[in-house]
């Protein structure tokens, strides 16, 4: 029984990781932009959940508001800053988005302060399912997992089956040709970036009730997201999903079975994958 629950833990953690990492892999794969500030967007999401829930009285009203704000923020950033970097070396994207981390973290400190906060689980989902005689599972965690699955399906559908998705895919494989076909590639890029930001913010908001809200929380998820993107293969949503689940398993079972190696387990996994598949699981070499 214990092992079954650990598997549930792994899947649940993996799905949450996927939600955060999916925005990064989209931006990475479609636009070719390395976005170090992705963790900051997750942090912004968590703080938005805290501030907006306090303002509006409920996480349910805070969520759509937050997503709209995030989308707008993404558009502004893309138009003002990111769009100037497409033709330049990845390194400048690294530098610029690193600068953004400092800016966002300090803005957070000025606007909301440096205290730690909690966000209440919405009353509707504030319950637990008994699993064993003394252990039960919070419904909200299962809800997060369900949301992640729905979103994964939605993203897959949008990219593979819709006209918009087709344009996005075309833009990713050959931007100039797509432009020549009369599709406004700049608009597509702005849209994808904003969607990526909105995904990270949404992940931060929905995770806030279980993760709590604290300074520096963005940096913690950033590295793990990069690891996921690399293991999965850059730009591959399917790869990101599988990598997230793999990391969920390695992290959970690593802590239980090999506590001495728990710190390095995730990185070890990444190194091993790259030894055998230098472009990640589903990446094009």
């Amino acid at each position, binding site marked *: 029984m214990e092992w079954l629950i650990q598997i549930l833990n792994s899947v649940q953690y993996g799905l949450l990781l996927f939600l955060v990492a999916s925005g990064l892999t989209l931006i990475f794969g479609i636009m070719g932009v390395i976005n170090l500030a992705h963790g900051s967007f997750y942090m912004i999401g968590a703080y938005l959940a805290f501030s907006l829930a306090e303002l509006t009285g409920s996480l349910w009203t805070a969520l759509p508001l937050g997503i709209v704000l995030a989308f707008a923020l993404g558009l502004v950033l893309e138009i003002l800053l990111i769009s100037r970097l497409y033709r330049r070396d990845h390194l400048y994207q690294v530098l610029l988005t690193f600068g953004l981390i400092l800016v966002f973290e300090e803005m957070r400190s000025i606007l909301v302060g440096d205290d730690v906060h909690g966000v209440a689980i919405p009353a509707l989902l504030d319950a637990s399912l008994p699993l064993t005689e003394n252990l039960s599972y919070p419904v909200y965690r299962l809800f997060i997992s369900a949301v992640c699955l729905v979103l994964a399906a939605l993203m897959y559908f949008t990219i593979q089956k819709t006209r918009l998705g087709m344009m996005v895919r075309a833009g990713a494989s050959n931007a100039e040709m797509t432009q020549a076909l009369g599709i406004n590639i700049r608009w597509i890029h702005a849209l994808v970036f904003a969607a990526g930001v909105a995904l990270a913010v949404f992940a931060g908001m929905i995770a806030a009730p279980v993760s709590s809200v604290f300074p520096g929380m963005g940096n913690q998820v950033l590295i793990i997201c990069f690891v996921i993107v690399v293991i999965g293969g850059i730009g591959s949503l399917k790869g990101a999903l599988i990598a997230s689940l793999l990391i969920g398993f390695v992290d959970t079972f690593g802590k239980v079975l090999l506590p001495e190696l728990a710190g390095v387990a995730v990185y*070890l996994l990444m190194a091993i994958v790259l030894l055998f598949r230098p472009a990640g699981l589903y990446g094009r070499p």
Partner: protein
Amino acid sequence: MADPERPRRSTASHRVVTWWLVLGILALAIFPAIAEKFYLQLITKIMILSIFALSLDLLVGYAGLVSLGHAAFFGVAAYALALAAPASDAPNLWLTLPLALAASAVIALVIRALVIRTAGVYFIMVTLAFAQMVYYFFHDTRLAGGSDGIYVNTRPSLEIGSIDLAQDLHFYYLVLAVLAGVFIFLGIILRSPFGRALQGIKANEQRMRALGFPTLRYKLAAFVLAGTLAGLAGYLAAAKEGYVNPELLAWHQSGMVLMMLILGGMGTLFGAVIGAFSYVLLQEWFSNLTKHWQLLMGSFIVLAVLVLPRGLAGLGQSIALRRRSSASSDDVEP
């Protein structure tokens, strides 16, 4: 990066570089005469970081291998000194330095050998992953003080004449000499057939391979050399501070040195040094201005990317060029 400049790089411009080098060394050599002790130590630290940035420049700017795990080599050498140093006596530099450099070189060799075929963004991430492993090794084991770090109680001794590295002034000149040495050494390396081959690989690896260059071996050599030089910087840092902490190996240290390099301008040796100086001095300046100095620093970095496409060194070149040609400013627009 410096492609458009290449045709202009004649012997004349080499003479200019030499002049700047001599001037720079002279300025640093007389600096202690006018500086307070704190600024002496600050410049010592910056010079050490310059060596660190130079070592990364060899990789990123010349060999085209972008590493986000360079701090691992820096940190491993620092820990090597801390672990090899006797409890109360001064460690002998001639014994501990080679040991520390060897440690960094071996780690670099092993890492590169494992990921020999990864490139591009994957290489960035794989270096990060290995660096994190080394970080957790020192953070999670009690071998070297864990997260609280470990002391190097006494600075290493040089065993030459009356040189006493425990004195900050003597140590300053040692670091200056090492920096100048590394700078000149890299200058020579880069003009050697080996260095030219590296730059050729960066520009077009397939062509170089077709020409019969064992490109993987060249890149391996560059990686190990860069790792060893980073170790040199790490050794000096541990000797200066007398304290080594796992955070020296953390990914944000690797990020910081990459920032310095991009800020100063990659692919020029001066760029690395200028980057280290300007990054640290800017931070010094901003943090004296306001509690929210990180906002200034972040905004500055964002602006620098937008306005200074080739780093501060590139800015200097542009100004010099503009003055010489007194042409319109169009050609330096980003």
